[in-house]
């Protein structure tokens, strides 16, 4: 539950935003970024569906690359002994 996922904002509607990461879209709450201006094309770090901070495109892409490596390294389902 603790994994932060960088996402790119596609559309903002009040406190909600349609965000995308690697082709996957999610509704994300901007409630915790009330003191920031969040616009389409911005990048945000998302935790359990809530954006907790804005970030740069470079940092977002670097994190995505890392997650690709992690996903490749770790199987999605529990594996047995």
């Amino acid at each position, binding site marked *: *539950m*603790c*994994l*932060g996922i960088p996402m790119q904002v596609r559309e903002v509607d009040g*406190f909600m935003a349609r965000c995308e990461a690697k082709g996957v879209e999610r*509704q994300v*709450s901007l*409630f*915790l*970024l*009330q*003191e920031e201006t969040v616009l389409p094309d911005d990048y945000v*770090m998302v*935790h*359990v*569906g*809530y954006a*907790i*901070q804005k*970030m*740069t495109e470079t*940092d977002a892409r*670097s*994190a995505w690359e*890392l997650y690709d*490596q*992690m996903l490749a*390294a*770790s*199987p999605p389902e*529990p*594996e*047995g*002994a």
Partner: protein
Amino acid sequence: MTVSARSWLERIRALNLPERIRILNVCGGHERAITQAGLRTALPNQVELIPGPGCPVCVCPEEDVYEAMRLALDEDVLLVAFGDMLRVPVNVAKGEPRCLEQARAAGGDIRPIASPLEAVAIAQRHPRRQVVFFAAGFETTSAPVAAMMAAGVPGNLSILLSGRRTWPAVAMLLDSGEARFDALIAPGHVATVMGPEEWSFVVDRHAMPAAIAGFNPESLLAATYSVLRQSMEGRPFLDNCYPELVRPGGNPTARRQLDRVFRVIDANWRGIGEITASGYGLSPDRAASDARLRFPAPPVSRRRAGEMPPGCDCAGVVLGRIYPNECALYGRACTPRKPIGPCMVSDEGACRIWWAAGLREPHEHCARKQA
């Protein structure tokens, strides 16, 4: 490994290191990145990276998991919880459901969610049902839960809160005089939310080197280099090696919502006990949304209530006292398919992370070079 990460490694290898230096991390994300990137193998022998209290699922009180199961089975509520929580075992008599997943198989309406937003949506879709959100997590999860409540929740949604604060657990370890580490790598996203200042006590009160790190090898190695330099020069300070996201004061909206919706309480950590000011409870004006008050638990006497399962040393793993494969159950009785302790259940648990990275040998004497 990137050029930048290699460069940090070279700088670390060029240091005239002391005989042994133990660096604690307190974040499952850090432990996963360290293990999967093979940083323990890459670092000089003198540098030990120790996984500590970085898994909110692992320390969630056994009583709270049991209460969530009771609500789903006895109170006819629709229970939602983060998916990680569903396989966390509790101590019950043989034949009874021992985790939320088994309680669901026994007829409980239990649904995994990935966000507090889903809890609200489910409550709205089922206006005639009582919906309980079993919310365990550290500050990075507690802040979104607070935001959910501040934004307003349906009257049929209540919350079974098991929010925990990270720094008080480290403070407890340091104050105990039994801390088995010499430096700290502080959690990047907790500091993003709460601000780096929360970790100043490590330096100010304990003169211990500390650095906040992000989640890629570069940032973790930069933080490692920083605490090594601080240690060798005898000049500890709180370094911020994740400035991309960690800013002074953290996220002010998140902190304000946490202050408004929750109150800080002394809280129980599974297998460890009560830690001062280490938890979140609902503020008194949110009592109407408190599942513990809406569905009061009958007094129950259970064997081993609150404890880790028999033979399980998850508490030692969480406290950084042993490596995962030093637990007698690791890889023998306890694997991700048949987990006994919560550290083998959660994606944030050190045992699960080590197992997923391919470390299959139990109880190796020198664990550090294997992960």
